[in-house]
C-alpha cells in the first residue's frame, strides 16, 4: 500500500520486501483534518506538513503539530502521511507515541466492513500492528485535549535523525492547581510505543512540584527495559527516557498553568 512512500520505497529499493503488486492509495478521499467539539479526526492521507501548518490544529491539538515538526526532514514532511507512520509502526517514530499518549482510536476499513482500534492496542511489535492484510487505516480519532499542556521531547544522534528516545507528555490541572489528568508515552524504548501509566498515576491528584515530576519520571523509567543495539545501549536509553520524561512534564506543566 503506497501512500507517502517515504518508508515503502526504501524498503522496495533494498529488496526487504518484494510485493507483486503495489496499490497507490493517494487518490482516496482521506486527506482531511476534521475538527469537532473536543475531537480531531485526521484522515490517513494527511501529510506531516499539514499537521505542522494547520492553524486550527495548532489551537485544538498542538501536540500533534509539535510532533510533526520533529519528523525526518522537510522532504519527508511533504509527502509522508499520518496513516503511513502509524501503519509502518517504527518503534522510534513520533506519531505512534503521540497517539498512544493521547489514547486515540484508529479507524480501519476493509472490504468486509469497518472497525476502530485503540491506539494503545494497535501496535504489537517492531513494524507490526493488528492490521489484517486486507485492511487499511482510514484515519485516527484524537481527543483534542486543548485544556492540557503538552510537550514532545526527543534525543537523536544527529539533527533530523530518528529518535533514540522520544517522550510525549500532556498534563491538565484542576482548580487547586493539582494535576487533574496526565498522559505519557515513549518512543524508541521498546519494540513499540510504550504507554507509561505508572508515571500518570504518580502525577494524578498531586501538586506538580519538582519532586513529584522527578518521582513520576523515575516511575516511568523503572518500568522500561529498552533494547540495546549497535549504536546505543539499553541502559543509556533508559536513563535518557527518565531525563526527557521529567523535562517533558515540566514543559507541559508550564503550558498548562495559565488556565
Amino acid at each position, binding site marked *: 500500500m*503506497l501512500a507517502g*512512500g*517515504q518508508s515503502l*520505497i*526504501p524498503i*522496495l*529499493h*533494498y529488496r526487504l520486501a518484494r510485493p507483486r503488486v*503495489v496499490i*497507490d492509495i*493517494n*487518490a482516496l478521499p482521506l486527506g482531511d483534518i476534521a475538527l469537532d467539539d473536543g475531537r480531531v479526526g485526521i484522515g490517513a492521507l494527511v501529510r506531516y*506538513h499539514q499537521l505542522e501548518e494547520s492553524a486550527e490544529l495548532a489551537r485544538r491539538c498542538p501536540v500533534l503539530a509539535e510532533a510533526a515538526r520533529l519528523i*525526518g*526532514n*522537510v*522532504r*519527508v514532511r*511533504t*509527502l509522508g502521511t499520518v496513516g503511513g507512520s502509524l501503519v509502518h509502526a517504527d518503534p522510534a517514530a513520533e506519531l505512534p507515541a503521540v497517539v498512544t499518549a493521547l489514547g486515540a482510536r484508529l479507524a480501519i476499513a476493509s472490504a468486509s466492513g469497518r472497525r476502530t482500534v485503540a491506539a494503545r492496542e494497535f501496535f504489537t511489535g517492531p513494524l507490526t500492528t493488528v492490521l489484517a492484510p486486507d485492511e487499511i487505516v482510514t484515519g485516527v480519532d484524537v481527543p483534542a485535549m486543548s485544556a492540557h499542556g503538552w510537550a514532545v521531547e526527543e534525543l537523536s544522534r544527529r*539533527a*533530523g535523525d530518528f529518535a533514540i528516545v522520544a517522550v510525549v507528555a500532556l498534563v491538565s490541572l484542576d482548580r487547586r492547581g493539582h494535576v487533574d489528568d496526565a498522559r505519557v508515552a515513549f518512543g524508541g524504548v521498546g519494540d513499540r510505543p510504550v504507554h507509561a501509566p505508572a508515571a500518570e498515576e504518580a502525577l494524578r491528584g498531586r501538586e506538580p512540584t519538582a519532586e513529584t515530576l522527578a518521582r513520576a519520571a523515575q516511575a516511568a523509567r523503572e518500568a522500561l527495559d529498552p533494547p540495546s543495539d549497535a549504536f546505543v545501549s539499553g541502559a543509556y536509553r533508559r536513563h535518557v527516557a527518565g531525563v526527557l520524561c521529567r523535562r517533558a512534564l515540566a514543559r507541559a506543566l508550564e503550558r498548562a498553568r495559565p488556565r
Partner: protein
Amino acid sequence: MIARLVLNGRPRDVDVRPNQTLLELLRDTLGIFDVKEGCDEGVCGVCTVLLDGRPVSACLVLAAGLRGRAVLTLRGLERNGGLHPLQEAFIRHGAVQCGFCTPGMLLTTLAFLAREPRPDREAIRAALEGNLCRCTGYTKIVDAVEAYVRGHA
C-alpha cells in the same frame, strides 16, 4: 504505465515502468541531469525537486503516481538564460565547491523562503538540515542565503 506531470512548466506524458521513480524518469528517460543521485533513500537531499512548490526526494516518488502535478528542477529557475539571484549569491559567496549538493540546496532554500522570507542564520540552518554537504562545512552556504535574504526580502 503513463506518468503525467508538468515538468518545469511543460506538460509531459511519459511511458514508465510501474516501479520507476521520478529520479529515474528525469535522469534515465528524459536525460535531465540537474537532479543528482546520492543515496537513493531520501536522506542526502541531492535529488531534491519541488513538487507543487514543496521539496521532495525524487528517489522516493513513483513516477506513475504523479497525476499531473508540477515538478520543478533547477533549470526551471532559469529566466531568459540568466541565473536566479540566489544562484548568483551562491557564486559570489563561495557556497559552491564540488557542486553536487548545490541544486538541492538551491531548491530547498527557495521553497523555504517562499514560506519564511526573513529567516535568521539559525533558521536557515534548520531549514537546510535535510540537505547534506560534505565540502563546504555549510558556513558559506548560510552566508549566501543570508545575503540573498538581505538583498531581496
